């Protein structure tokens, strides 16, 4: 990985971390992790709220990272149409 890719990765990881923090906060303010699921009892992979919060956080982080990475990729590989090139 060259220096530039490293920095780009850093930006993606960081921006998605911020997004995940906000998403986790808002989501779990309204949803109790123990009430997730169809039945009266939560699924086995949420044995307690702490695990629920943590899994939720990493899920949001992953999703935000995918979105950030896709955004970075599309911006990086877009065609160089002179009319939209802001560096000119």
């Amino acid at each position, binding site marked *: 990985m060259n*220096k*530039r890719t490293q*920095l780009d990765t*850093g*930006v993606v990881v*960081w921006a998605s971390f*911020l997004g995940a923090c906000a998403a986790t*906060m*808002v989501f*779990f*303010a*309204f949803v*109790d992790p123990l009430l997730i699921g169809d039945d009266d009892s939560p699924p086995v992979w949420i044995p*307690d*709220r*702490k*695990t629920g*919060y*943590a899994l939720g956080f990493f899920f949001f982080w992953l999703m935000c990272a995918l979105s950030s990475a896709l955004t970075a990729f599309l911006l990086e590989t877009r065609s160089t149409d002179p009319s939209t090139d802001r560096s000119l």
Partner: protein
Amino acid sequence: MNAVFKEPPSTGLYAPHRKVYPREVKGRFNRLRVISVIALLGLFYLMPWVQWGGRQAVLFDLPARKFYIFGLTFFPQDFFLLTWLLVIAALSLFFFTALAGRLWCGYACPQTVWTEIFVWMERWTEGNRQQRMKLDRGPWNANKILRKTAKQTLWIAFSLYTGFTFVGYFTPIHELSNGLATLSLGGWEWFWMLFYGFATYGNAGHMREQVCKYMCPYARFQSAMFDRDTLIISYDAARGEPRGSRPRAVDPRSRSLGDCIDCKMCVQACPTGIDIRDGLQLECIACAACIDACDEVMEKMQYPKGLIRYTTQAAMEGRKTRILRPRTAIYGTLLVLLVAGFFWTVAHRTLVEVDVLRDRNALYRRLDNGDIENVYTIRIINKDTTAHEMSLRVEGLPDAVLDTDAPVYLVEAESVASIVARIRAPDTVRGGRDIEVIATATDGSGIESRAQARFIGPAGT
């Protein structure tokens, strides 16, 4: 307003990174920062140990879904207060930026504050700027290994303690320290302790000014709040130029020199590695280290201080700086209103709240006598510090009755009671109807709380 900013160099965002060795400075702004570091970090490290009314004064008890802040208890239902608080925080940032530039960056940002502590530890173990540069250039001898090991040990220990304190805001810190001493902590406590500790170590130890340059969104948009009357750190080029070295006894005017002796102390002191004499730059976090460094030199040269100083663009152009202007007036007024409203809302918030959840399994049920029944789970949230006896009733649907297993329920202080309630209405009800569930305290406290709900009958008109 962007005119004050120097064009970024063409190498841009991805310029190869040079390690910055900030020179230690003495002076009034450095004293101010030391006071700020001690106050803010002192607050962070001590707060979890403060007890209030028999429990931790500030505790975000996520597993129980309750936040304790001194005498107050907050529930997820109070989420809008947190949002409100964040809006106030954002607006304060705008207000203070418009007024005094990047005050936040220079004195209060966790990145600055923790970096400062880490730089102190670096100085204790590796010495001053020259010694650190020499050590890094030199071979890996016993001295270097010893000093580097000492620094890393201090950094890692401090980072781990920081992670411990951070988790102490979410798990009662006495419980946490006992668990740590007996190695009986849960997995998530370990994980978040190491996570936050590692983040502190990485950001304050290694990333430092790069966080401000590459990661901080505020650094990128703060210039939008700037105008000609905003306090900035500026080099007085008119007074300083042409720069050049000269003996101390010589009058600079006789050699047609300005007051800048080009000693580069301001550059060496800069934690982000810029030269303030090139003009205001995006990288400048307004820490005022260059002011302190330059003032010290000016004093030695017996020139007036303030060649680099806090000033405004208006002042530099010889005009008067206006503190009161539309921008600050609007930010300020909004801020006062929001803060006042926040405290009023906290003081007047309802102590008991009702939440109504419809039974998920059946829309309605027909009873033997033909009546229609809907089943609900009603949650009574008691935020008060005393228990309350509550009874429930329904309004908004003629002849409807609300039936629960017990006539009254005792809802303990700061807790939530879940009650299954059946609402029955005569067979004449068709379709969905809006109803209201009312919880009333039967203990004479006068507390009453209402919640909207939906009653569903058979289809038809």
